[in-house]
């Protein structure tokens, strides 16, 4: 999968919620979708994905159901719950505010100080 940017702590949950908000996905699908959406810049450690999924499921933010994959195998699909949708909105806003703040700091020039 090559190398890419490291994830900031806490962002994995946000990315998973976003990925499954677009369409129900199985675990491997979530991995591929994040990779695709980030233009291959974000690499998720495969081993940490599943504990994160179980954590989100335990908190009731996503709900699992068994379905059939493209290659006709039984696979566990995750979909966003109503609580998950709210959580995604809150975390996304949080992230954008943080992002803006960091931008302001990084964009500062000597004159502005």
């Amino acid at each position: 999968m090559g190398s890419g940017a490291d994830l900031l702590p806490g962002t994995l949950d946000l990315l998973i919620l976003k990925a499954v908000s677009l369409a129900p996905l199985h675990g491997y699908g979530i991995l591929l979708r994040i990779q695709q959406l980030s233009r291959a810049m974000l690499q998720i450690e495969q081993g940490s994905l599943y504990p994160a999924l179980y954590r989100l499921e335990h908190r009731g933010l996503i709900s699992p159901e068994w379905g059939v994959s493209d290659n006709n195998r039984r696979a566990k699909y995750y979909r966003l719950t109503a609580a998950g949708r709210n959580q995604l909105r809150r975390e996304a806003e949080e992230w954008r505010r943080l992002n803006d703040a960091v931008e302001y700091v990084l964009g500062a020039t000597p004159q502005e100080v």
Partner: protein
Amino acid sequence: MFTRFRSFAHAISRRRRVESDLADELQFHLDARVQDLISQGMAPEEARRRARLEFGATDRVREECREARGLRVIDTIVRNTRFALRLLRRDPVFTTTAVATLALCIGANTAVFSLVDAVLLRPLPYPDPARLAQVVVTYARNGESTVQSALTGAVWEAVRDRAAGLDAAAISESTPEVNLFADGHALSVRQQRVGSGFFRVLGVPPFMGREFTADEDRQGGPPVAVLSHAVWLSQVGGDRTIVGRTIHLRGEPYTVVGVMPPDFRTGWLADVWTPLRPTTTGEGGGSNYSVIARLRPGITEPEADAQLQRIGTDVIRGVDGPNAASGRLQQISLQRGMTEEVRQPLLLLWGAVALVLIIGCANIAGLQLARSSVRAREIGTRVAIGAGRGAVVGQLLTESVVLAVLGAAAGIVVGWLVMAALMPALVTTFGLWQPAGLSVRLLGVSIVVAGATGVAFGLWPALTATRTDLRSAFAEAGHRGVAGRAHPWPRRLLIVIQMALGITLLVGAGLFVRTFLSLNTQPAGFDPTGVFTAHISLQDARYKTTEQVVRLFDESLFRIQSLSGVVAAGVMLTPPYERALNLGFMPTDGRTGNFTTNACYVTPGALRALRVSTLRGRSITEADRAATEHVVVVNEAFVRRYYPQRDILGESMRLGGTARNVVGVVGDVPVKSGWGNYGPLAAVPTVYLPAAQMPDASISMIHTWFPPTWVVRTVGDGAPLLLGIQKAVGAADPLLPVTGFRSIDDVRADSLALQRLRAELFGGLALLALVLTFTGLAGLIAHGVAQRSHEIGIRLALGARASRIVGRTVGQGMLLAAVGALAGVGLALAGARLVERLIWGVRPGDPLTYVVAVVGLLCVAAVASLVPALAIARVDPARTLRSE
């Protein structure tokens, strides 16, 4: 929060499913990745390797997933429990010993607690039981207070009229064997006479009809009755029209006014209630009533006591008691009043089983200590490869809890069996009238006891075990030339404690056994061989006069005497070994004061049938008729107490209003005393009166309390005799049922049932303590020998004599036993004061009991030390050397 709980609950309840789903999901991921890598042009083998590498350790991922769902604690517990069960299976001797010990200890505790719960702790089954009280007179004597609950009619009237804060009712004891006829059926029932307001005070209204009015509860009031639900069902088939109809009690018509609800129970065990009709003369002149009460709303206990005390001491002068001047009228809780007699013995029994539990727990703690020192290597290894101290303690604790749960489960079964086996004896001896069973409360207490035991004996060894640092753990496990420095002191201390408590229990049991033996073997004063007794209740309208009663006696005895095998027969008011009538009397020699004696009317044949020896003068004869001089025959105990150093023949006394001359002295026959300080079964001052010379009024009153007893001496068997008596009585009066047919030995056994049960219960507990102590000591010695077998082998190889090593090992055990026994004697001497009032014919400091207890325990200790020490002789020095 709720979703988390659901997810957690789901994870637990469908654990296997969740596990396999997780495995499937991860497998799907790996397969998909492999497919992608292959489609990117990688060789299948390489793709699989690569996929696994990228994913990392699946086990760790799974673990983290489980943790994410909150399953880790459960996992640990399940794993620890499995491990503990495996270990326990691998060590069956330890497991069996521990579980059996716990089962016996917890079983004994469960059984005794269920009894304590039913008798002392559970609130009375009436509304607002805390407001129920009993009015009593308390006497302070030598710093101890005695409670007198039997009161006179005068006290009852004073309480009724002057204690406005109490809603009170007077009652009488219940009378068994009363004949009830209703709807053509006859039944022997228990009748209790209760004052109006009895049911209102208890707070239980009749199920049908009403209770007695004040008008019905006075002398000459209309005869009315309230039936128990059971009698209503069995006797009149649950007929609802019974209220207002007539039934016959003792041959007299009574109008039924009410029926009580099915779950109504009292400690007096009655089937039919009739009005008390209290008086201040006759019955009411003596202490024959109890007074129960409910505190009126807003009245506190001190206020009620103050009202009762204002009544003054004058009114209690007629009450039986050590000293009227020191008496105080007061109220105590009804529950306490009803359990006054059994409270102390029951608490004592509870204390004894608690001691057994402590001994048992000490045993298990010892076993665990021994085991943990053997397992020090294993634990050391686990700590060495990185197990945290918490994890090791958790593991050891789990083992203890698993043991405790197994023990508790087995203990509940044992307790249930013990309860079931003892129930009939308990019902009569401890006055158990509420159902005792495996209540939720009882279950809770058992689990708490087991749990506390588990933690107590699990935590200590666990903490000592993990304190071991690695080097000493490996060194002390003893695979060096010498034995490791074991930590024997905690275990030795446990043994000493066990010994001390064991002695205490043995001494207690010994005192009770000696009490029973001394009561059971006291001189009978008559020849009991071939003597049988039977009761016939004469609470009957047709037997109101002495003439009617004596005619029945004469006719039935005439027929009984002609039965084959019958040597002699007679009728007496109460037989030997049973409670007798108490009567006040007044010597005519000018002495004043209170004189009390047992009184018993007899037909001339009764003392002859018993072969009671006449010591001076004459016995009662056929010549003593109603019209002849009124006479009395007294026993030796009477002479000893009231006429010492004086010739009693020719003296006279007033008895029940009649002057009588003393014409003879007979030997003592033991009876239940019920007054004075004579003990449960003793030679009590007694006067014998000719039945024919009883006044009419007193004979019918006495017959409401006692059914007269036919005593028959036979050379034949009991069974045909019963038939013969029934026929003989039937010929004289076909309506009188014969009850209570027993040999005189059975009468004695029944009278001593409480003392026997006490001796058996405490004896059983002492035996249990002995077995536990044996196991504990034997375990300690065996463990020491096993630990030192290597060292012993080397010593033997170097020429030490096995017998000397055995001797020293046994000596060690005996030293501990001796120290424990010494401590135990001190403890027992202190504890024996608690049983002082329950033992007879033996002193609390009885030297023989103590010597037997100490010698017995030391013998057990000797065997417990010797048997495991003999293993030393089997140590083979050659093998020890080879293994070096």
